């Protein structure tokens, strides 16, 4: 009984919407880079703090505005409330990301503080904020998506895959850091950010593919 209810309740989302959201998020990232390069003429290597902050400033509003449209139980929760949830989720997610990075060995010195903060803000808007906007503080949903990684439906995939992609990408991005290549991008958090963004984009592509397959399968079944 309960399971049936859960199956019905997730708000429907078409593969076109998924496509739209992912394209917007990806474009926001790209625009962030473009603005950093061409308007402020900074880049990730020489000014990681500024660039990360700039990308975050462009990505975060896009993410929060888009994902709040797909909030769960829209009749109970207004658009503004969803945005407020996202805003609240941002510092929490940033804290969790920063702690995770520290546990994995990010430098803890004060001179890295600003970089860590801007990196974790960006990571939070890639991983935490969407889910916070959509599901709020519902523990079962969080548990399903993040602890068990058992997403159901396109919406879950849309939240789960890019977030996991970003985290796993960041994890792999950290590997070149200790090598003695003496390249400037080996510094914290440059290659980690590159990895995270690459993983995020890969996750979006995966989620899009799954959404297409899902709807395709449904249509086939319907026929």
């Amino acid at each position, binding site marked *: 009984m309960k399971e049936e209810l859960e199956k019905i309740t997730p708000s429907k989302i078409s593969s076109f919407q998924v496509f739209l959201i992912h394209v917007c998020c990806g474009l926001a990232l790209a625009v962030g880079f473009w603005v950093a390069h061409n308007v402020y003429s900074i880049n990730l290597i020489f000014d990681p703090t500024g660039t990360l902050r700039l990308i975050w400033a462009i990505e975060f509003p896009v993410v929060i505005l888009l994902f709040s449209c797909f909030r769960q139980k829209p009749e109970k929760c207004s658009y503004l409330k969803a945005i407020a949830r996202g805003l609240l989720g941002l510092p929490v997610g940033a804290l969790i990301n920063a702690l995770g990075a520290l546990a*994995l060995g990010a430098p803890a010195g004060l001179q890295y503080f600003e970089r860590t903060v801007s990196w974790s803000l960006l990571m939070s808007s890639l991983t935490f904020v969407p889910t916070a906007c959509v599901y709020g503080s519902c523990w079962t949903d969080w548990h399903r998506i993040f602890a068990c990684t058992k997403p159901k439906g396109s919406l879950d995939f849309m939240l789960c895959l890019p977030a996991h992609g970003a985290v796993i990408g960041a*994890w792999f991005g950290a590997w070149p850091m200790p090598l003695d290549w003496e390249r400037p991008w080996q510094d914290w958090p440059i290659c980690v950010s590159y990895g995270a963004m690459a993983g995020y984009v890969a996750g979006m592509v995966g989620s899009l593919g799954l959404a297409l397959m899902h709807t395709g399968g449904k249509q086939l079944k319907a026929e």
Partner: protein
Amino acid sequence: MAPLTCTKLSVITITGIVTQIFGLSLFVFGFFPVKPALPGTSGSESFFAPECDFVGNLSDTTLPSDQLKSLYQELSGIPPSFDRLILMVADALPAEFVLGKNEKPPHKQFKEAMPYTQSLLASGSAIGYHSRAAPPTVTMPRLKAMVSGAIGGFLDVAFNFNTQAMMDDNLLGQFFRIGWKMVMLGDETWLKLFPRLFKRHDAVSSFYVKDTVQVDQNVSRHLADELSKDDWNLLYFQILHYLGLDHVGHIGGRSSALMAPKLKEMDEVVKLIHSSINQSQGNRQGRTLLMIVSDHGMTEHGNHGGSTYEETDSLALFIGLRNHVFDYASVINQIDIAPTLALLFGVPIPKNNVGVLIREAFDSLKEDQHLRALELNAWQLLRLLHAQLSGLPCRNFPCDAFYDHQSSDSSECNHMTENMLCCLYMEAAALYTSWKSKRSFESTSNKDYSSTTAAYYKFLKSASEWLSRRTTDKPVNLLALGLTTLFISSVILSSLMFCRLREIYHRGNQQASNLKYSMNGWSFDETFIVSVVLILVTCMTSSSMVEEEHYTWYFLISTFYLLLLRETAQSLSSVGLQSFFPMQKGQSGEGFFRICCSFLLLISGRISRGWHQGGVNWTSLPDISKWLEQAGSPYVKPLQLMSAVLVISIGLFALFSIESRGKCLQMVRLSFLISGLLVLLHIARYQDYALSSTNYGGTFLVQIIYAILGAVTTGTIVALPWLIPLSTSKIFPADNTFSPPFSPSIQEKFPLVELRDTLYVVGWAYILCWCLLQLLLQQPINTTPILLLLLQIVAGVHYFARSGTHLKEWVEIAGFHCLGMAGHFALGNSNTLATIDVAGAFIGISNHSTFLSGILMFIITYASPMFILLSLVMYISTKSVVHLVIPEKANAGDILMMLLGFPCLVPLVLNSILLTAYTVVLLLMQNHLFVWSVFSPKYLYVCATTKPTEKEAAAHSCRSKR
């Protein structure tokens, strides 16, 4: 397939281990050949023919230098051709830049950059050679080869890891002995090699590779001054070592835009020196030889270290010999420089020299002097041959005395190498004797002379080749056999583990209904552990990843902890949100406890990671231990005492938490308490002076502690299983509130519970004993990492004890293995031999004993991996066996196998896979730059890790036999 029985399992395991040891020793034997080197330095005895009753040095080394010099001159019969030597080393200058390649002139751009040198070469006043350098083509071994004529093996490095100074017989030492004044300007490597020989020196460091200008200006700034100094009367040796060219290469490669200006600069230096020599030649007597050499070449990209032609093609340029004009430069070996210089300057050839005289350098000598020089070189090589070939019959030594023309002809010189060398030598010696006798009748012909020299060169060349091949060649068969054996053993062990896994998996399937999580498919952690192994194997192929291996381990272990945290979160709401309500307090408490454990793991792991900044490249970054050391002992001491107290109290708490009134157990507790207090006393009172040998009190105290710890631990291990009256029902260790719920059927199995209690006590006895030893031996700064390590172990064990079936046993043990390696690096160890704490190895030893201090050094270095292996005993005892003991009538063997199978197998399998992989890497990389500095020490570490792993496994299986 028939299920494994306990006996079968242990027999196969032991076979695997024995195979592994066998293969490892084969491989090590083949890879690190021990080269017999002659000790001591050459003295006047090198001017006499080698004899059977060969005795060491005559006492002539005690002679004053001027007498020694005239003695040498008298004995050798060759007047020194030169009095002054200026050795200019241009680091990494390929001979191709100066001499061209394949009989073609050098590239136009390079030729134009060095006009003066090229004009000297064209006029014939300079003779240039391609001198082949032996790998590894890095500066220090090359300099050693140049001055001693020997090709070093790896064990030279391994045995002298704490002293860099060159102890072997070498040219500089010989020059010093006959009273030369030596001056060195340039690379500080020379100062490290020869710390006290130089009268004046100005060393520059090659640390700042980006600097290509200053590093050479610092050499040249003294040059004009030095050349005009008055005190270089007659005996003078100047070394100029220019590093700039090497730096240019490292930055931009061979075709760097900076290369031509740098060559121009070198040319200017040559011009300056040569014109100053010509001037002084006019007004003074001394004759000067200017040698321009490079230690090695460089690849197209400016790197060096390997054995390609570009890297080994180095330059040797003599200026000041009799004029020769060559169409193209011939090829010599770099080691040939040593004997040539020795005889040109009238000192004995260094003892372990493998080189051969350079022919053109002796052209200015008279015929008899040239032959005499060849004879001296031949004698020296013959001595070396005799040292390496004990089979070389002694009667061959005074060959020339017994030689009979009729008894042998050159056709005989084709047999085995040893005989051939001897035969060649005899032939040359005979020709020389006949030449000498003919000369006394004034009837020598040019033909005799040239045939004699040809015969000598033939002997020298083949002997030199044979000797150098012997030092660098590796017996391929032995290596292949060793590798195959290692591979077989790792296959045996891993297939054994796989069998066990499958068995357990089947059983799990049978009663999947009992288990919340059925064991179908791979779980995430198992994938993680398998990928850890793959990542580690991949990382070993990269030299910088081996240098910075600790980062890999830290990263993997903290990822593992994060996965544990995620696992906890997963299980938390398998109970759902209700777990937050009081009605299911037990389970939520357990979840909460596990979350606490994983946070404790994460935090203590992170702190111990930050404790020592290990490795090679980033050692200068700040870390906690540096910061504490700067803060000084008022901070270190309390911290150390606090950590020690905490460590001891954790251990004692665990021992006292067992509810038993047995006398035996009380004894154990009491004696650990006493020894803990003694250790604290030692830390508080003596540790500051522990290294001064006069401190009898401290040494005595330490000895008492050793004795108590040894006695208690052995006593516990041996006697406890028989003495302990533990078999009353409610003795399960650890605080009962946390202990996992037992099904009554297990509680009734008294022998099993008893066994587990015993294991628990024994495990804690191991842990406490090891901790106390470490507190005693490690540096004060390392006390806190030990505490952190203990905390991680305890937290991990408690976490796993409560995890039930969420995690599989082998995953947990593999996690512990990772923790052990991470802890190894957290205690300040690294993959270089330089971080071994030698000082600690003498604590509590009153008289010098290599064996005892070796054991202590081992205890210090392998503190963490051993710690983990010992604590596995404790881990076994706390592990819930609910899901393991399935058959109603399990016999003792089966239970033991359940308990001990994985803890023995998993470390063995991991270690054997890594060992085999690393052996392959070492074999593939044997010509790589870092094989000497990175891979080989790492290999020694891996070998040494193998030992305790195996020992531990043996101990486990011994227990299982009981």
